[in-house]
């Protein structure tokens, strides 16, 4: 298998960054990790995952859509879209990699979202297998294997080496582009690392969390459950879960007067917010119970109903560690199941 020794990782990053923008998960001053554009000397974080998911690369928090020039009664529409430049995201975890295929099921189905597709077409996803999954991890619940991540090209760190394997054509192009830096090597150390990780996975606190009681046919079973009242009681409606979630994809469209015309942009939105469904004549989701229920029903019932049973969650665990009232999808699943 093709590999590179860990002390040459910097030269690998230099070689990639010389051709296109490279983003890697790096440490922030506050101890969290986030994707940063690579500059010489930047180091990969030692943290398991980034605070924010990798969805920003394809579905940024805010994005300009179109501009208008207003002149009296006249309006001129300016299509400001530009072909995006090629880029590489290095070090995406298996959970976030799966989230891209979930977002694809929303944004690449007819009518294709050209803004999303543009970024997706130009981005190469290099994933990084996990060797030390956290207590909040439950990607296995959704059939994700963190020791064999998806993405265009998968990478494993084992011992003193980084190993590479292409999953897609784009991934093969990536490997070909760095082939000069890679060498063939045996995989003994990699195999033992993967075996060790699999043992750790079996012992994770959420290892036995199952989706068997959820899916597209569970609407009537759960929608009117009396559990929602207690589960949602303390929800602040802050939307943190939505913003750190790699699969949450709802957006708002807003206009901004630049003083030199109108800029129309879209930005992340949350079904947890009170004005999400508010109309001139009223709001069909009046209380936090309904808004809270919508978020979880969508991930556990509605999304699978429309997508051959695939759930709208990848078990990254971000909501488990970030919700200010410690509410999360795992608690919701357990409560709903407990009849």
């Amino acid at each position, binding site marked *: 298998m093709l590999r590179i020794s860990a002390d040459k990782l910097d030269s690998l990053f230099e070689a990639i960054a010389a051709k296109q923008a490279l983003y890697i998960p790096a440490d922030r001053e506050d101890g969290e990790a986030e994707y940063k554009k690579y500059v010489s000397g930047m180091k990969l974080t030692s943290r398991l995952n980034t605070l924010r998911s990798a969805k920003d690369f394809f579905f940024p928090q805010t994005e300009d859509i179109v501009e208008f020039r207003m002149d009296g009664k006249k309006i001129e*529409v300016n299509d400001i*879209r530009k072909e995006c430049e090629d880029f590489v995201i290095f070090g995406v975890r298996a959970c976030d990699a799966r989230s891209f295929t979930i977002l694809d099921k929303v944004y690449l189905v007819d009518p294709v979202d050209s803004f999303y597709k543009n970024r997706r077409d130009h981005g190469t996803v290099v994933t990084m297998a996990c060797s030390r999954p956290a207590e909040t991890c439950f990607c296995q619940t959704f059939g994700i294997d963190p020791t064999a991540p998806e993405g265009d090209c998968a990478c494993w760190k084992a011992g003193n080496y980084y190993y590479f394997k292409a999953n897609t054509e784009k991934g093969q192009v990536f490997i070909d582009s760095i082939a000069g830096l890679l060498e063939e090597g045996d995989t003994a150390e990699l195999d033992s690392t993967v075996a060790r990780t699999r043992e750790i996975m079996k012992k994770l606190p959420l290892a036995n969390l199952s989706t068997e009681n959820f899916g597209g046919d569970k609407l009537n079973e759960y929608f009117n459950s009396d559990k929602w009242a207690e589960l949602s009681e303390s929800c602040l409606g802050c939307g943190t879960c939505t913003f750190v979630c790699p699969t949450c994809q709802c*957006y708002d469209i807003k*206009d901004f007067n630049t003083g030199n015309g109108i800029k129309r942009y879209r930005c992340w939105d949350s079904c947890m917010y009170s004005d999400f469904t508010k109309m001139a004549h009223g709001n*069909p989701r009046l209380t936090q119970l309904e808004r809270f229920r919508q978020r979880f029903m969508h991930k556990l019932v509605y999304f699978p109903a429309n997508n051959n049973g695939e759930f709208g969650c990848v078990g990254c665990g971000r909501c488990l560690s970030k919700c200010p009232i410690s509410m999360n999808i795992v608690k919701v699943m357990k409560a709903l199941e407990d009849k």
Partner: protein
Amino acid sequence: MNNDTLIPYVGVVTDIRIDTPDVKTFRVEAPEGGKLFEHMPGQCAMLSIPGVGEAMFSITSSPTNKEFMEFSIKKCGCLTEWLHAMEVGQMITVRGPYGNAFPVETELKGKDLLFIAGGIGLAPLRSVINYVRDKRENYGDIQIIYGSRSKDDLVDYQEILNEWMTDDGVEVDLTIDNAQEGWDGHVGFVPNYVKELDPSINKTVLICGPPIMIKFTLAGLKELGFKETQVYTTMELRMKCGVGKCGRCNIGNKYVCKDGPVFRFDQLGELPDEY
């Protein structure tokens, strides 16, 4: 790059009709004349004044109108206030058409049709009414039961009097909530009027109006013997994208903008009661 549905067309408002104290009907054409796009009855479009907002409105004109599109809009919020302040010649942005349509070429074909509308709820039904009037040979009898708060609040009143009421095979039954001078027609709420008129249960029903009117009318229709599979309505929820991606109009596994806005009541019954 391919066209993106989020990037709108520009339309010109070429006529503004004052329907009621709070409803105006706007005629919209492409800057070079003609329609911006074709649609089917029941479909909607996103109208916007850039810098103010964008919202979904039903296209009230019939597709058989080859010259322009019309939108009947009630003043009830920020964007609609601005729309009502427009003058002829003003440009707006338009994108669409969005959503499904009333099944005028399939399930409704050959049927006797009963339209029931309340207030501005006539706007989406007017598209269907004028479509079936223009293709009269494809449909059976047409009955229209329409009510509003007062005579002044009846949308499209002149068209109802001069065109619909003078058509053969079209029965129009109007009602207003409270008696007023100059009105010798029926007085009372729509749900009760429907029961009084006791329409034949062979008719296929298309209903649109305030939620409370729909609720009581549907209950009355069921008492008369109508089945949910015979009754269609069109829904309204907050929308942003119009193509089932922004998530706003999601109910159960449906997106009202894309899978609706037209639903049969038996289909609605399968969705959570969140509208």
